[in-house]
């Protein structure tokens, strides 16, 4: 079993070139999650942390948003989703040149599964539930880049 979090300095983290975050405006977040309940919780949580949130219910919707010209400072993505999963979506976004911070949030906690997800191009990966501590770590990392 892997620990709760992987990334941000952990040996499994990938160092992706990050875009400069304008700290004057709200951090924009894309939540990619197929489960309606979890999507609702994550949306309100990120809103409570002062970010501007948009939702996608699968990886394809996330990729389509970027293709339509949208951009986000942070993407929080589930792993297993219909139509396009988190691994495929992350690979596509990175191949499109997306430099946003991409953080995986998954129920899976086996080493091999998390590593496969990280390899797709994530900056970090957390095991659900997403809580205040994990959100704070992500946002602090985002502001420190």
């Amino acid at each position, binding site marked *: 079993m892997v620990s709760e979090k992987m990334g941000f300095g952990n040996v499994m983290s990938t160092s992706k070139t990050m875009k400069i975050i304008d700290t004057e405006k709200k951090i924009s977040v894309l939540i990619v999650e197929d489960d309606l309940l*979890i999507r609702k*919780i994550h949306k309100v949580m990120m*809103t*409570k942390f002062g970010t501007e949130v948009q939702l996608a219910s699968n990886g394809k919707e996330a990729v389509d948003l970027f293709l339509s010209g949208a951009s986000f400072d942070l993407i929080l993505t589930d792993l297993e989703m219909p139509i396009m999963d988190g691994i495929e979506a992350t690979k596509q976004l990175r191949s499109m040149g997306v430099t946003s911070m991409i953080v995986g949030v998954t129920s899976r906690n086996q080493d091999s599964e998390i590593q496969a997800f990280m390899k797709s191009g994530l900056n970090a990966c957390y095991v659900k539930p997403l*809580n205040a501590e994990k959100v704070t770590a992500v946002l602090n990392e985002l502001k420190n880049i």
Partner: protein
Amino acid sequence: MAANTEALNQQLQQIVNSLKEQGILDSQFWMVHSLKEASSPFFLAQLIPMFCHNVQTTLRDLNRTLEKEPVNYYDMNELTMKLKGCTSSIGARRLALACVTLWRAVDNKNKDVCGSALNGIRQEYQTLRSSLDRIVELERRIVSHQA
């Protein structure tokens, strides 16, 4: 009116703290409760029925998948992870742990143990369900008093 709201909030706190002491809920539940401030007063009262529907639907699908021959353990795995995700996200600790037990049985492709683990999940859900109904009732009364 304020005294009534306070009394209702105290009742809610007592129920949730008792469930936490029993390990049925964890701190994630209070965190989700606190999201009312950033959403609407009805947030938790709407979320809990959504959660219950999620659990019931997924349990039904798990049951059906386990009853088919041969058992599709890939589907069992996906459904179990889905259930683990939503139970942990709302703070239903023992239910989430019961999902881990089922996951192990699915990983071992042991049908009998899967069946026992699924029964374990059902029992945990039944234990939690009546308390969740009470929490929703209190939440609705608190909101109506505050209106």
